[in-house]
Each structure stands twice: as structure tokens, then as C-alpha cells.
């Protein structure tokens, strides 16, 4: 079976790379991967799962590598670990039935994402086109409850809630399977201090700091650009989520229906978050396009960019909705925005988004190992 052959080759290649790294260890100041590797005499399949997801793909180790091509060892750790990491998404997908069937790389992955997102947009837009009178859909709407005249609140909550519940379940079970896939957790490590450490690592992206001066975002020179753009994106998403939570409280508990005035918390959080997401996605995409291609697994770039594009569209349509909500464009924009958000929710467990919970789990495991004295 070609897929199994591929997985075998990918694992063997990464194992060989890590064994050379373990004999060298010059990169041990860059990130958490090398100190974690150092405690291992050999690299098991579980170790590969763990270390590949602990890697933040910053590529500093490639540019510092005395064994990188054209050396005969042809060592390319970021690329090798990227491919294993991608394989681990496949191995721990839920439901497991999807394991061998979902593409995570190349154009098929992009095509699946586009198809799901378009279906989600259609799911929102088609009923509205069929049942909402055109004068409401294309007319100017304003005042409390304007959004819900187009798409009923119950429909939004019902459909989005169902998609989100499924996705959270699938991500949760996937992460649980991944946690087991990293092998037994180290005995004697207290969970809470390790959790605090992992949260701090994730919140600061310490491992994208290259031990202080940043990483090799594009070439052999160091920069913090990738870390900062990622902060803009992830904190942007967090702010948008906060905006949604506050709006839910306003609407549901306090009885103030959307839309809200510009100086309100939901609009402030949402617009700040939206700008962050736009800046983050554009910045990360530009870095990706301009980066030295040598340490990158080119087959994965499509799926990475697909997620960035989707998040950009989610943020841009949201900002557009805010800017144009007093005009006739509000109706179509609302449908597109809700459809894109729904599409994003639906693809969470099957897209590059998985890197976030998997990486956090790996950071937690690394912190537990450090505290457990592996």
C-alpha cells in the first residue's frame, strides 16, 4: 500500500535525522525539541509523534546545521518533522474511519477545504435566498435585531452550535488519541506546574524565539516576524471569540440584541481581533511565500495557505460587515461571513488548525518530562 510505504519512509527519514541531531546537539538552545531529544537514547515511534509536534517549524536548526545539504547526510530536520507531524494528524483523526481517506497535503487537501467551506456558505445562503424576501435581503437594515431578520438567531445557534460541537468532540478525541500516541506520560510529574509552563510556552511562543533573537523566518538571518504575526493571528482569533461570548451574554442574558454600537465591547473586541487576524494571516502568508524553500515541506504549503486564506476571509468579511452594516451590502455580507465561520468550524478537526491543540499537548508533555526528571 503506497500510503503505508510513504509513512514508513517518512518515519525512517525523521528517525535518522534525529539520531544525527542527538549526536550533535549544537542546536539545543533553540527550542524544546533538542533538550527533549537528549533524554532519549533512541527514537521510538511514540517519540517521533511527540517530537514532531513539539517542533514549531522555525527552521533555525536547518540554517545552523553543519549537515544540511549539500552535505552528504542531507539533514533537513524541519522538513522531516513536518512530514511526520502531518502523518500524526492523519493517525489521530476522529472518527478513525477517516484516517486513510482525508487528504492533508497538496491540492486535494485544498480542494476538500474549499468544498467544505463553499458548502457551508451555501448552507447559510441558499435558505436565506429562498425564504427571506429580496427587499429584506438586499435592503438596508439597521437597528436592534437587524441580523436576525436575515438569519434567525435560532438557526445560527443551531447550525453553528452543531458544527462546533462535532468539531470540538472530534478535536478532543483526536488530541486524546494523540496524547496516548506519545507513549505513557512520565510518572511523578505534577500536572499543574507543567500545565502552567505549557500555557506560558504557548502564550508567548517561546519556542519561536530561537533562544532570544528570533528564528530563521526567511533565510539565515534571525527575526521575530513570524512569532509576531502568529501572535496577531491567534490573539485576534481569541478577541473575536471574546467578542462573540460578550455578544451572547448581551443578547441572551441582558436582552440587548445585535448589532451593537461601535463603542460597545463586542464591536471593539471584534474589530481589534479582525484586524489582528488580517494582519496575522497576510503576514504569515507573505513569510511563507518569501521563505527559503529548502527547509520547507512543499507538499504541505497548500493546506497551510488554505487555512490562512480561510481565516483571512473570515476576518475580512467580518470587518466588511462592520463597515457596511448600514448599507444594502449588509445582507449578502452577513450570509458570506456566517457561511465562512461555519466552514471554519466544520474543518477544525481536519485542517492545519490541529497543530494548535497537538502542539499544546506536546508542550505539556515536554514540561511534564522536564519536571518529572525523565
Amino acid at each position, binding site marked *: 500500500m503506497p500510503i503505508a510505504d510513504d509513512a514508513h519512509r517518512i518515519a525512517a527519514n525523521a528517525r535518522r535525522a534525529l*539520531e*544525527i541531531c*542527538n*549526536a*550533535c546537539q*549544537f*542546536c*539545543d*538552545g*533553540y527550542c524544546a525539541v*533538542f*533538550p527533549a531529544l*537528549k533524554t532519549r*537514547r*533512541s527514537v521510538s515511534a511514540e517519540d517521533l509523534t511527540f517530537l514532531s509536534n513539539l517542533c514549531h517549524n522555525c527552521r*533555525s*536548526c536547518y*540554517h*545552523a*546545521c*553543519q*549537515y*544540511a*545539504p*549539500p*552535505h*552528504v*547526510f542531507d539533514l533537513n530536520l524541519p522538513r522531516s518533522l513536518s512530514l511526520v507531524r502531518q502523518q500524526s494528524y492523519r493517525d489521530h483523526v476522529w472518527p478513525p474511519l477517516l484516517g486513510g481517506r482525508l487528504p492533508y497535503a497538496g491540492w486535494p487537501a485544498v480542494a476538500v477545504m474549499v468544498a467544505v467551506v463553499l458548502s457551508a456558505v451555501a448552507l447559510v445562503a441558499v435558505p436565506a435566498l429562498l425564504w427571506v424576501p429580496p427587499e429584506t435581503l438586499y435592503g438596508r437594515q439597521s437597528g436592534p435585531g437587524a441580523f436576525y431578520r436575515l438569519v434567525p438567531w435560532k438557526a445560527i445557534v443551531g447550525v453553528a452550535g452543531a458544527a462546533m460541537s462535532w468539531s470540538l468532540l472530534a478535536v478532543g478525541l483526536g488530541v486524546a488519541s494523540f496524547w496516548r500516541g506519545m507513549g505513557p506520560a512520565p510518572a511523578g510529574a505534577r500536572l499543574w506546574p507543567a500545565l502552567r509552563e505549557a500555557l506560558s510556552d504557548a502564550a508567548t511562543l517561546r519556542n519561536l524565539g530561537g*533562544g*532570544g*533573537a528570533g528564528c530563521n523566518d526567511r533565510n*539565515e*538571518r*534571525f527575526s521575530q516576524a513570524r512569532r509576531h504575526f502568529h501572535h496577531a493571528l491567534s490573539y485576534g482569533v481569541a478577541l473575536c471569540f471574546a467578542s462573540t461570548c460578550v455578544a451572547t451574554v448581551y443578547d441572551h442574558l441582558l436582552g440587548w440584541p445585535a448589532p451593537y454600537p461601535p463603542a460597545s465591547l463586542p464591536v471593539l473586541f471584534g474589530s481589534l481581533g479582525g484586524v489582528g487576524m488580517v494582519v496575522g494571516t497576510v503576514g504569515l502568508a507573505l513569510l511563507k511565500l518569501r521563505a527559503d524553500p529548502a527547509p520547507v515541506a512543499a507538499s504541505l504549503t497548500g493546506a497551510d495557505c488554505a487555512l490562512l486564506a480561510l481565516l483571512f476571509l473570515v476576518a475580512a468579511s467580518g470587518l466588511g460587515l462592520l463597515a457596511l452594516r448600514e448599507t444594502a451590502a449588509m445582507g449578502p455580507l452577513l450570509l458570506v461571513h456566517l457561511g465562512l465561520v461555519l466552514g471554519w468550524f466544520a474543518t477544525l478537526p481536519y485542517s492545519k488548525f490541529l497543530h494548535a491543540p497537538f502542539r499544546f499537548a506536546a508542550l505539556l508533555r515536554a514540561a511534564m518530562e522536564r519536571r518529572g526528571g525523565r
Partner: protein
Amino acid sequence: MACASCDCDVLVVGGGSAALCAAIAARRAGASVLLLEAAPKPLRGGNARHSRNMRVMHDAPTPWVRGRYPADDYHADLRQVTGAASNTIDDGLARLFIDASADIVDWLAGNGVRFHSGTDEVLPYSRKTAFFLGGGKALVNALYAAAEGLGVAIRYDSTVRALHLRDGPPAVAVGDANATIRAKALVVASGGFQADFGGLRQQWGEAAGEFTVRGTPHATGIPLKALLENGAEPAGAADRYHWVAVDGRAPLFDGGIVTRLDGLPHGIVVDRDGRRFADEGAVVGPSRYTAWGELVARCPGVTAFSVFDAAIAERFRPSIFPPIQADSIGGLASALGIAPQTLESTVAAFNAATSGGTTAGIRPPKTRLAAPVAVPPFGAYPVRVGITSTCLGVRVDGRARVLRQDGTAFEGVHAAGVIMAPNILGTGYLAGSAMSIGAVFGRIAGREAATHAHC
């Protein structure tokens, strides 16, 4: 100095850390600088690419090194390794070097090189050396970036074929076209000649064909030979090398640190005939790599085998190459091309003589870490030697000027790095000192060359 036909003020031959430090120092002193690196860009940086740390004097903890390492301690450590060759050492130069090493880390950091914090928990404790964050290639990348940023002209793929030192300002011939480049001052920082197998053969005969080179294939020593032919006073010795025991499957060049074999003191080591030839437990500390380099270089065929059993294999870090394995000693011998009876009797005699971590009644003894080789599967690594660098250089003064045999200095000709390290190290090896010598004398040579060019 006026020179209408000169292409630049300071010409630097070499592309490793000494050359880069010279180029940066000269440029910072206001000179126009051209650097000629023999390697293509991906392999730039000479042996510095494979380095990890540098040994520096400090009287108090610094951000990069713990504790203190006073000049007298450094000097005593140098004395210890230079040993018999210590009469070739220039003690005044060594003292000057040790003092200058105190602020070299600051200077490198000011030129973009990043170091581990001295309190970094991932590192082994060291009060003597500062570690490069990301290792030597990261240092090389940083120094090239700094040099480019300052306006140093850099040419890759530029092998220097000859030096012209007799008439007027120094000049070099570069590349296949032998194009001449003339400068007001010259810094030669092109390392040793370990990658010139013809040169190695002159000292070691056919055995040299079995050596591997742990570093750059571009250290062919042409500028070194040219300086000597022009009458430079030699330092060190032509037939002495820094070398270590490496896995026999290491690549011919650039094997670096990972091909070193860690486990030799744990099992037994036999020659290609299947006989032990040294006390494997004699050296178990960090100098074991070097000690075995010396021993294996003198073995027939420059080949030996590290032999161990399944229990011993757990006690050392495995090679990056898989062990050759068999379920019996005879089977292992066949796989290694050794007569089975010889290896069987070697192992049987060793096992019978082993008790309490040492041996009794066999020659050579094993004085430490002796354990029977008895638990299958049995494993072996082929062992060869890997040369880090040769120990022949040119004599320099405290301004890094190359000296003639009569003690006078060549006008405007300076040397830095491994090409002059034997002034300080003789034929000895002190971990982390070569990188310090390169940086310290690179900095001095660059500054002095710029001064010479301007006066």
C-alpha cells in the same frame, strides 16, 4: 601606504572564523576589504562550521561563562597539552592571547554572534568555554552577515593558487584563471593542509589514504605552503595532526562531531587481525576521542573495530551508523572480515581475565570499565581516524605579522587562525582554544593590516 595598482586595502585569504574576524576588524578600522573564500556559499566557514564553543579567560562570571577562569589557569592548561612540544611555544604570545581572549566574546556578540547564556540549563557545566547558540555554522552565518553589512566584499569559490610576496605590496593569484589581486596588506587565515592527501602522504605514506577529514575539503594548505616557500619560519610540526577516532563509515570530509565514536573505552578494541592492542580503559574522560585517534592511526591499515555485547552496548551513546551485529563472536568476526578463531580466542582470553572492572594476566591489560563480552547479540563498529587539523603553521609576532626565519616580519603580511595556532598550541590540543585563537588573532590581524594599509 600609497598603491595605485591595489584592488583593496586589506585582502583576506580564507573564509572561516579567523578570516571573518580579520575582515570585520579591518573594515571597522576603515579599510576596504576583500575576502576570498575557497568554498561555495553553502559550505562557507571552514572548520568553524563544525565548532561549538570557545575557551576564554575571565576573572569573574560573565553573561556567557560561569565561575572564573584566571589567566594562570588557562596558561597551566595550555602548558599541560603542549607537553613535549612546549619548547616550540611562544610564551609571550600565549600570554598575550590569553589576556585578549577575555573580551573576545563581547566583541563577537557585538558583531552578531549569539552565545548560550552562562546559566543555560541545557549545557554541560563549563567555567572555561562559552558556547555558540546553534553551533559554529550559526556563528559563521552571523559573521558573514556582519561583514556584508559593514561592506566587506566577499567572493566565494575563490581558491588562492599562489602568493606573491617579493615585489611591492602582497598579491595573490585566484581561481583557475590565476587572476592577480593586489592589496596594501594581506591576512592569511586559510587553516591547515589536512584536506591535501598528497601532503598527508608525504608524512604518513600509504596509510594517509585511509584517513578521513572531519572538516572542510577546502583546507588544502596552498597559502600555508606558499608562506613557507617564501621563507616564513615554521611553527608546530608537519607530521602531527589533531585527530580522533571516528566511525569507519564516516564521510571523507565534513563528518564533524557526530561521527566520533563514544563507546571505545566500554568494550574491547581489536585491530584488523582480531587482536587487542591497547588498554581500552586507560583514558575514559573527554580526551578519549583524541587518544584513540592516535592509537588507531598506528594500526595496520589504519583500521580497528570496537567490539561489545548487548549489555555493554547500553552503556554508551550509539554511533549514528548501525552496529554490525551477529549472534556469536565467530559470526561477528566473519562479518568484520576477521578470522573467527582469532577474535574468539581474543574475546575468550579477555573474558577469562576480567573481574571487578579490570583484568589480570593479559597483555595489554584493561585497567578500567572491563566487563566480559558475553551477552548476544554481539556488535561492532569499524574505527578509523578523522583529522580535525594539521599542526604545521607559520611563526607570527604579537601583531599577527608573519615572521621570516631571521626573525624579521613580512611587510603587510599577517596570519590568523589554525595557520598560526601552533605558536600557542604547539602540537597539542585544548578544547575550544582554536576558535579563541582564530577570533583573537583574526581581530588583531585585521586591525594591524588596516593600520599598515593606511600608513
